[in-house]
């Protein structure tokens, strides 16, 4: 349903500091239907460097989709979201907030900051994998993502 099914893989940037969640997300995406590369950074500053191709990330690809945790070391996920969505160049990249928080204020604040959607991570393992698979199938097969360069 989108034009990415053949050809270049979809680049996804996962911004997550919990190693267990990183591993599960990688597994779920590896088994997905759409050819994709999952890149992982574990704090907000690294994420900003990746997106702006600074330092060690000079050659990083521009991601087609971002999965963002809110509670991150160094630079908080909320601050990073605000930065991405107010940047003329980066703001069109869809950002899926994926966090353990289900606080009403985090949900509302994320949408205010123009998160593309907000998803609470389930605690239960099977449910977590189901959620990640749903993100994969909706964003990579149903939605039309903006093309990167």
């Amino acid at each position, binding site marked *: *349903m*989108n*034009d990415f099914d053949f050809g270049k893989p979809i680049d996804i940037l996962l911004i997550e500091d919990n190693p267990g969640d990183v591993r599960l997300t990688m597994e779920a995406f590896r088994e997905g239907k759409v050819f994709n590369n999952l890149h992982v950074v574990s704090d907000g500053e690294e994420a900003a460097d990746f997106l702006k191709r600074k330092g060690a990330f000079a050659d990083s690809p521009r991601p087609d989709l971002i999965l963002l945790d809110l509670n991150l070391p160094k630079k908080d996920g909320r601050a990073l979201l605000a930065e991405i*969505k107010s940047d003329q160049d980066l*703001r*069109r*990249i*869809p950002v899926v907030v994926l966090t353990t928080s*289900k606080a*009403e204020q985090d*949900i*509302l604040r994320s*949408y*205010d900051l*123009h998160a*593309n*959607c*907000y*998803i*609470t991570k*389930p605690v239960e393992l099977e*449910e977590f994998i189901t*959620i990640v698979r*749903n*993100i994969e*199938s*909706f*964003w990579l097969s*149903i*939605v*039309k*993502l*903006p*093309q990167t360069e």
Partner: protein
Amino acid sequence: MKKRQEAMKILLVEDNLADIRLTQEVFREGQIPSELFTVKDGEEAIDFLRRRGKYAGASRPDLVLLDLNLPKKNGKEVLREIKSDKNLAPIPVIVLTTSKAEEDVCRSYDLHANCFITKPFDLDRFIAVARAIEHFWFRIVQLPRPAGGQT
């Protein structure tokens, strides 16, 4: 995954009568109780969202499905107005259009559309897409509730 008792309120902004009917059917037969409101042009969409004129008693939608090519006020203009209005900005807007022009895709995301979906021409695929929207946005995603809880 989220469970909500009350019906999800959807505002469909669409001028094509066949697409309206089909979308109504899909959501009526859906897994999740929902109430679909339909407006057929961009000005009506804004009136509905701002509760003006005959829409003074309108509900605040949980989700907006927005076509881009609309009479009176086009979809991009509607999107810009929603996403620059502090009160309306948190409502997720799904652009659902026949267009697959890269310019429309990029412009929509730049204007903070929550996602962009090209309507498939094929009937079964259209139904599958509508079901996917229903499932993802009402079962997987946490939708915002406005502060103060007004509905």
